[in-house]
């Protein structure tokens, strides 16, 4: 089934590089993988770069400057399959929290010469700028999912990864529900599976790095959390994390914060 080598490119936008690192973290598979995959553009790994077109372009990072907007459009044109990789690319990332603030204030708070700094009004998920074919969620993406994704592309199928609530995976794994047993607020019921439910495994609630699950109902979770005694502002902060700018979470946050933006 494996045909010619897949031309893969990895592009970085506003991000921490953690998602691309997950590619290099596939130590056990990296050498076999390169039999089937050619990284034609992957600056973190190689000096050698080849121009497009690419079979698959992985986009890491959110789009937050005018140059980035331009570049991602170009990448889109040159790529057969464009994958938004990680929370930044799929939901704007942690840096999207600035989207609730005024850009001018933000710049001034950070830079002595704010006028030197070019930035878009919002830190945007890739899909707000160009068409995205697939999303690989997570902060960072899971390397198992990344590998599975690549393998699926290699056999020529449209990749499929479950997008159900984290709770399913959490409980399959045999974790004890931290909400029920410890009263710890957890976003698991509304967050997409994929990380292996590691936060509950390590005794804490999910903080949402995989973003809303398919058909997530964050409003129901928010009202339950309030019912058990959490303050609105704390519930809002729980959602306002690595995927806070995703449409579904944004809505809940705005409701809780009383319609600010």
């Amino acid at each position, binding site marked *: *089934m494996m045909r010619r080598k897949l031309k893969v490119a990895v592009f970085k936008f506003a991000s921490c590089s953690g998602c691309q690192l997950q590619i290099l973290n596939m130590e056990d598979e990296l050498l076999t993988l390169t039999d089937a995959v050619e990284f034609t553009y992957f600056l973190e790994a190689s000096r050698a770069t080849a121009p497009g077109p690419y079979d698959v372009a992985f986009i890491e990072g959110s789009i937050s400057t005018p140059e980035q907007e331009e570049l991602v459009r170009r990448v889109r044109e040159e790529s057969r399959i464009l994958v938004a990789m990680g929370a930044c690319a799929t939901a704007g990332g942690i840096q999207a929290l600035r989207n609730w603030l005024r850009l001018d204030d933000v710049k001034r708070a950070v830079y002595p010469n704010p006028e030197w700094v070019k930035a878009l009004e919002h830190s945007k998920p890739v899909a707000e700028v160009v068409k995205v074919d697939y999303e690989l969620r997570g902060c960072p993406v899971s390397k198992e999912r990344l590998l599975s994704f690549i*393998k699926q592309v290699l*056999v*020529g*199928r*449209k990749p*499929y990864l479950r997008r159900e609530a984290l709770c399913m995976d959490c409980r399959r794994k045999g974790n004890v529900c931290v909400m029920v047993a410890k009263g710890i607020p957890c976003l698991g019921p509304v967050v997409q599976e994929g990380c292996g439910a590691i936060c509950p495994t390590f005794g804490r609630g999910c903080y949402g790095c995989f973003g809303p699950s398919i058909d997530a109902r964050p409003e129901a979770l928010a009202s339950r959390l309030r019912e058990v005694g959490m303050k609105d502002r704390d519930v809002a902060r729980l959602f306002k994390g690595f995927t806070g700018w995703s449409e579904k979470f944004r809505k809940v946050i705005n409701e809780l914060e009383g319609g600010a933006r």
Partner: protein
Amino acid sequence: MVEGRLIPKPAVIEDVVDEAPNVRTFYLRMPEGYPEPKPGQFNELYVMGVGEVPISVSDVTQEGLVAHTVRVAGRVTEVLAEASVGDVIGVRGPYGKGWPVEQAVGKDVLIVAGGIGLAPLRPVIRHIERNRAKYGKLTILYGARAPRHLLYKYELEKYASIPNTELLLSVDKAEGPWEGHVGFVTDLIPKADIDPERTIAMICGPEIMMKFTIKRLYEIGLKDNQIYLSLERRMRCGVGLCGHCQMGPYFVCKHGPVFPHWFIKKYFWVEQI
């Protein structure tokens, strides 16, 4: 054995026929020990590493090749549709309860099919053709989106020449020359010459189309126990294990996919059952 039942066995594609846009028929040389499927049964077809989909048997040839007419609908069917002669795919089956061809002996048979829904009914037409004396009148009402979406165009008209057979076609939208009906396939029901007393109706198509058909059939006097339909549900195993295909208490894969209407009526009409 559950694994045993879930293991696809290799089958060789011996012929591929392009039927319509995004629809192809694959004629398979089945693995040894594969039982002869009955009209209305389906197989699970598997593409290595890609996945598995339930597909009805759309013909069994004189040479024993088993045909499956596949419409591209998603992940698996998309890759499957690319397969060509000589390729090996996996099969398991045949599964499910088929059309009531035995109960219909001595009766008129009305076939109402929409789109890809003709595929599972084609074996019924074949069966009646081969056992013509055993059945009364055969009425085939078939509708598709447009003329080019009609399946089996190379033999469709020949159905009309099966003795004592009426064939009426309809399309949602005529493109180019078209002499048949334009509209819903259900519009054909009053046009056909159907004897409600002695007819067994077999329906396959989108659920909404089947519901309209049943209403129309009531209007011309058919009763629930004369109506059969083939249902579609998500299936992950095909053999009543995985739970996905339940409709009410029934597993569509093993209690169906063909059901008498009286049997499932209680659930079939409930919203999002």
